[in-house]
């Protein structure tokens, strides 16, 4: 399940965070956490509830910036203080609740807030260019091999959970990001649908994206991740290369019974 390139630690990660610390009042949710992801690599972020996984993701996404911490993007020092900073760098996040509008079709959801406008005099009225959007949506979903959709004009509310996850992931790709963070992408999915989403994550890796996945399901992580970073009580507790670890070893690191 691992690619040869990713089993050896890369020279220069695409995104490197160091010393990320986040306090909520007196509580230190993250303490001096280092984290890195390379292009074409899937890094799983695991840990028990309250270990700081979501806090780390939110710090990198800029929605809840860390109190301390430095970031290198493509080797360049950058700062992430807002979601816009993260977006400009090319960091996209798919949250667990997906944030889709059930009453709109797939195309409308993919382009929500970023609609293509018809050119010419009607641009003043901000007339939607449905054809351009549909064309791009079909192209994007085909390139991701999302083939189970009957039509891109299907209402999102009538899709299966796996399809909804696929739409949410595809949506994050429209801005041509370099790093995609997925929060619990397989939670509450059936076996077949989980498989669909894991396949999709592998295709994102083939595109050369750096991917960060939060998950509680260790089997899924072993199936898709190249490296596994374990957080425990707000600190980075362990790092595993998937090909060299076992289910039990990861559980041990999460619970703190080993290392």
């Amino acid at each position, binding site marked *: 399940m691992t690619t040869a390139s990713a089993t050896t630690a890369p020279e220069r990660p695409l995104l490197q965070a160091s010393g990320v610390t986040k306090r909520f009042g007196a509580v230190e949710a993250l303490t001096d956490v280092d984290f890195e992801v390379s292009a074409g690599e899937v890094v799983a972020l695991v840990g028990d509830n309250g270990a700081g996984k979501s806090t780390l993701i939110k710090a990198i996404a800029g929605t809840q910036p860390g109190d301390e911490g430095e970031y290198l993007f493509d080797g360049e020092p950058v700062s992430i203080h807002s979601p816009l900073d993260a977006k400009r760098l090319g960091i996209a996040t798919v*949250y667990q609740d997906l*944030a889709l509008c059930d009453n709109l079709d797939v195309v409308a959801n993919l382009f929500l807030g970023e609609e293509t406008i018809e050119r010419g005099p009607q641009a003043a009225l901000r007339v939607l260019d449905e054809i351009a959007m549909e*064309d791009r949506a079909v192209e994007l979903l085909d390139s991701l091999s999302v083939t189970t959709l009957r039509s891109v004009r299907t*209402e999102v509310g009538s899709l299966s*959970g796996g399809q909804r996850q696929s739409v949410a992931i595809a949506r994050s790709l429209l801005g041509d990001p370099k790093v995609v963070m997925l929060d619990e992408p397989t939670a509450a999915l059936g076996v077949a649908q989980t498989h669909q989403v894991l396949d999709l994550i592998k295709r994102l890796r083939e595109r050369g994206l750096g991917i960060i996945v939060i998950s509680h399901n260790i089997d899924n992580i072993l199936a898709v991740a190249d490296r596994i970073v374990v957080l425990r009580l707000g600190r980075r507790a362990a790092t595993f290369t998937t090909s060299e670890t076992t289910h039990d070893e990861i559980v041990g690191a999460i619970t703190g019974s080993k290392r």
Partner: protein
Amino acid sequence: MSTAAAPAPTPEDGQSFRQQLPLRIAQLGSLRVALVLTAIWIVFQSQNDAFLSSFNLTNLVLQIAAVGTISIGIVLILLLGEIDLSVGAVSGLAAAVMAVLNVKHGWGPIPAIAAGLATGAAIGLVNGFFVTRFQIPSFVVTLAGLLAWQGGLLKVLGDTGTVNLSDPTITGLAGTFYGDVVGWVLAAVAIGAYAASGWLERVRRVRAGLAPPSLRNFVIRLAAVAAGTIAAVLVLRADRGIPLAGLILVGLCATGTFVTTRTTFGRYVFAVGGNAEAARRSGIGVTRIRITVFVLASTLAAAGGIMGASRLLAVNQSSGGSDLLLLAIAGPVIAGTSLFGGRGSVWHALLGALVIGSIANGMDLLALASSVKFMITGAVLLIAVVIDAVIKNQRERAGAGR
């Protein structure tokens, strides 16, 4: 214009989103309303053969113009998942402002009408501000408005209580009828525009390599629009002519449909009604959209009030009161706009007004007692809301296979 407003929907073939079950149910909704309307017309015609006369149908158009206009604003509000209970009171207040400025202060008709509309817009701004700034449910904010603006109506009217309108421009809103030439030219333009836009979309889709919409379906829709438009002109020309009030209502519906289905603003209204949090995270200015819709709804309510005053040739203390508010909300819901937000169409304002207006008009022709009329209208509304809830449940079940 009734059938033009609701081209008979048919199941589409090919790669159409209408194959999806929930939408098929939603679409059955429009057909359902068309069938209900037909049934209502058959029943009343069988009881009184004056019902479907040109004279009475022209009256029907004049009767629904005001409430239909108010309902357009209600559709926008319902799409957001909000409610506006102040539209009736606002329509009365705006009409009173117009009437008093025109009659007592000697303002010209156009400035007076503009002042009435501006009154509506300002009230919408207040509603939107309180709903968005303090996160108060729109139900409560506009309920307060309902009382406050009724007080405003009494205040503006002053001691006289009733202001009679005689300005030809103002009374002309409901009293102007156009002859054959205007009627047929407008019909040709409407049918031509519908055909051209459908055909253009087809050509562009084919050129882009996308699946074209079903040709058969397009032809059926076009035929329905053409037949409805021609039938409307034939009926109306046989009596007083094409009423300006009807044209205003249809024109507003067409404009509203364009804005809600073809522009980013409309897309954002649906998005906020479907999932406000998702819209916010997509960078949509949810507050701005909400306030804009409240302003539009109150302005349309003011326009409806002005049209109603024009028809009754007066504004009095009961203007905008009685059952106007409930009928304006009931109409779109009966026609299939959801009370739960995110689903509906501006045409439902016209279609719903036709259903409710037909029932009221028919019951008046049969000289039924007010008690019976209220109970029947209430029952119709209840049935419509039940159907809305059932469809919502079905939709959720259809999407539940996650």
